[in-house]
C-alpha cells in the first residue's frame, strides 16, 4: 500500500508527474470531476487546521468523491484513549483513503503501518508536512517555470519551520539551487539539515541575518511565521516574533519577477500592503495546494486499486 508520510517518499519523477497532473487539472478541471466517484476520504484532524483540512475536502469533492472525518481530537475516539494504530484499522473499514494531522511526530507513520488504505500526512507536530511541500513546488513551477537555477531565500523561523525543512530537502534534488538562509541566530536551520542534506549534496548556501542586504539576489522569497506554539519560553517568542516584517520599502531592491511565498497563516511578517503587489504569490499558493492534493489523491487511489 502506497502512503505519503514524508516528501522523500516520492521520487523526483513522481513529483514531476504529480505536478504535470495538477497543471492539467488547472487547464481541464471537468476531465477530473468523476475520478473519485464513489470513493470516500477520511480527514482525521487531531489538532486544528482550517486551510489544510478544507483544501483536502475541497480537492476530494472536486474529484467527485465524498468526505467524512473529525476536526479535533476531543470529538474522536482518541478522547477515549484509542491508539492511532487502532484508529487507522477502524477508519480503513469506512474510507478509501485517509488524511491525518496529529500533534505527535510520527503519528501518520504509525497509521500507515496499520491502515489498509493509503494514508496522507497532513502535518505531524514540527516534523513533516509533505503536501505543503508539494504545494510549494507546484507554486514554484507555475510562477517560475522551473526547479533549477534558482536563488531561494528562506526567511524567519528556520529552526522549527517544518515547511522550510521539507522544501530544502525537496529542492536539493535539483541542479543550480542556491539557498540564502535568513534568520536570527536562535532560529537557524538545524545542524542535521546542513550535514545530511546541504553539505552532503554540496549545495551552496549562506546563513545571514539581514533580509534587506540579500533581497535583490533572490528569485524566490519564502517567508515564515515565528510560531508561538514551538517555544517553551514566551520571552524568547516575544523577542523574536517581529524580527522580519516584509514591507514595500524592503521590496524596493527586489527583482521584478521575485516570487514571494508563505505557507500561511500570516501574522504580521508580510505587510498587507504587499498583497496587491504582483510578486505576492501566497494566496495563489493556497489555490495551487488544492490542485496538487487532487493530483495526489488521484495517484494514491489509482495505486490502491491496482
Amino acid at each position: 500500500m502506497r502512503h505519503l508520510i514524508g516528501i522523500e517518499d516520492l521520487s523526483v519523477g513522481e513529483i514531476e508527474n504529480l505536478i504535470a497532473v495538477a497543471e492539467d487539472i488547472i487547464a481541464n478541471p471537468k476531465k477530473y470531476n468523476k475520478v473519485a466517484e464513489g470513493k470516500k476520504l477520511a480527514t482525521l484532524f487531531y489538532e486544528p487546521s482550517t486551510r489544510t483540512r478544507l483544501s483536502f475536502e475541497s480537492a476530494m469533492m472536486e474529484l467527485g468523491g465524498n468526505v467524512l472525518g473529525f476536526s479535533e481530537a476531543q470529538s474522536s475516539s482518541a478522547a477515549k484513549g484509542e491508539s492511532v494504530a487502532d484508529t487507522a484499522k477502524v477508519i480503513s473499514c469506512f474510507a478509501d483513503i485517509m488524511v491525518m494531522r496529529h500533534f505527535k511526530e510520527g503519528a501518520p507513520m504509525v497509521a500507515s503501518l496499520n491502515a489498509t488504505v493509503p494514508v496522507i500526512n497532513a502535518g505531524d507536530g514540527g516534523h513533516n508536512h509533505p503536501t505543503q511541500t508539494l504545494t510549494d513546488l507546484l507554486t514554484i513551477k507555475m510562477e517560475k517555470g522551473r526547479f533549477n537555477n534558482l536563488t531561494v531565500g528562506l526567511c524567519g523561523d528556520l529552526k522549527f519551520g517544518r515547511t522550510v525543512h521539507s522544501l530544502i530537502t525537496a529542492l536539493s534534488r535539483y541542479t543550480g539551487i542556491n539557498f540564502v538562509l535568513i534568520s536570527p541566530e536562535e532560529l537557524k536551520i538545524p545542524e542535521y539539515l546542513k550535514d545530511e542534506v546541504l553539505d552532503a549534496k554540496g549545495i551552496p548556501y549562506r546563513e545571514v541575518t539581514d533580509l534587506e542586504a540579500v533581497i535583490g539576489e533572490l528569485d524566490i522569497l519564502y517567508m515564515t511565521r515565528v510560531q508561538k506554539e514551538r517555544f517553551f519560553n514566551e520571552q524568547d517568542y516575544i523577542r523574536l516574533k517581529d524580527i522580519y516584517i516584509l514591507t514595500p520599502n524592503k521590496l524596493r531592491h527586489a527583482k521584478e519577477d521575485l516570487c514571494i511565498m508563505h505557507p500561511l497563516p500570516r501574522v504580521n511578517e508580510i505587510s498587507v500592503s504587499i498583497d496587491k503587489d504582483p510578486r505576492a504569490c501566497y494566496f495563489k499558493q493556497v489555490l495551487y495546494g488544492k490542485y496538487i492534493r487532487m493530483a495526489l489523491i488521484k495517484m494514491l487511489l489509482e495505486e490502491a486499486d491496482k
Partner: protein
Amino acid sequence: MTVDSIKNGFVIDHIKPGNGMKIYKLLGLEALNCPIAIIQNALSHSMGVKDIIKIDADVSLDTAILGYVDPDVTVNVIKESKIVDKYHPGLPRELVNIVKCKNPRCITTTEQELDHIFRLTDESKRVYRCIYCETASKK
C-alpha cells in the same frame, strides 16, 4: 590476573574501554546463570587498553546491540575450546527496542505499545534516527 578459557560460548574482544559494562547490561547478561567474565582495562597491543567479555555458554547474542555500542569489537565463537568463527558485528541497519526515543513530541511517548525503532541514516557519523520522528539517538 587469570581467567579460565571457555569451552562453548563467546569471547567478545577489543571492546573500547568503558563499553564492557554497557554491552553487559544491554545484552541482558546478568540474567544468565552461566559463568561470565568481564575484564576491564586489559592491556592490548593495538588499543593500549580494552575490555573483554567471556561467556561460557552457547547463548543467542544480539549482534545489533554489539554493533550499535561498538561495531569494531571482535566476536570469537568457541566450540569445544576452539575458535570456530570470528567476526566484527559492524553497524546494524536497524535497532528495535535497544534505544528509546528522547523526543518529547514523538508518538512513542504517548503510545506505549509501539516498538522503538531506529534506522542508520549516516554511516560515517554513525547516526541513527527514530523511524517515527527522525530524532537522532544519543548514546
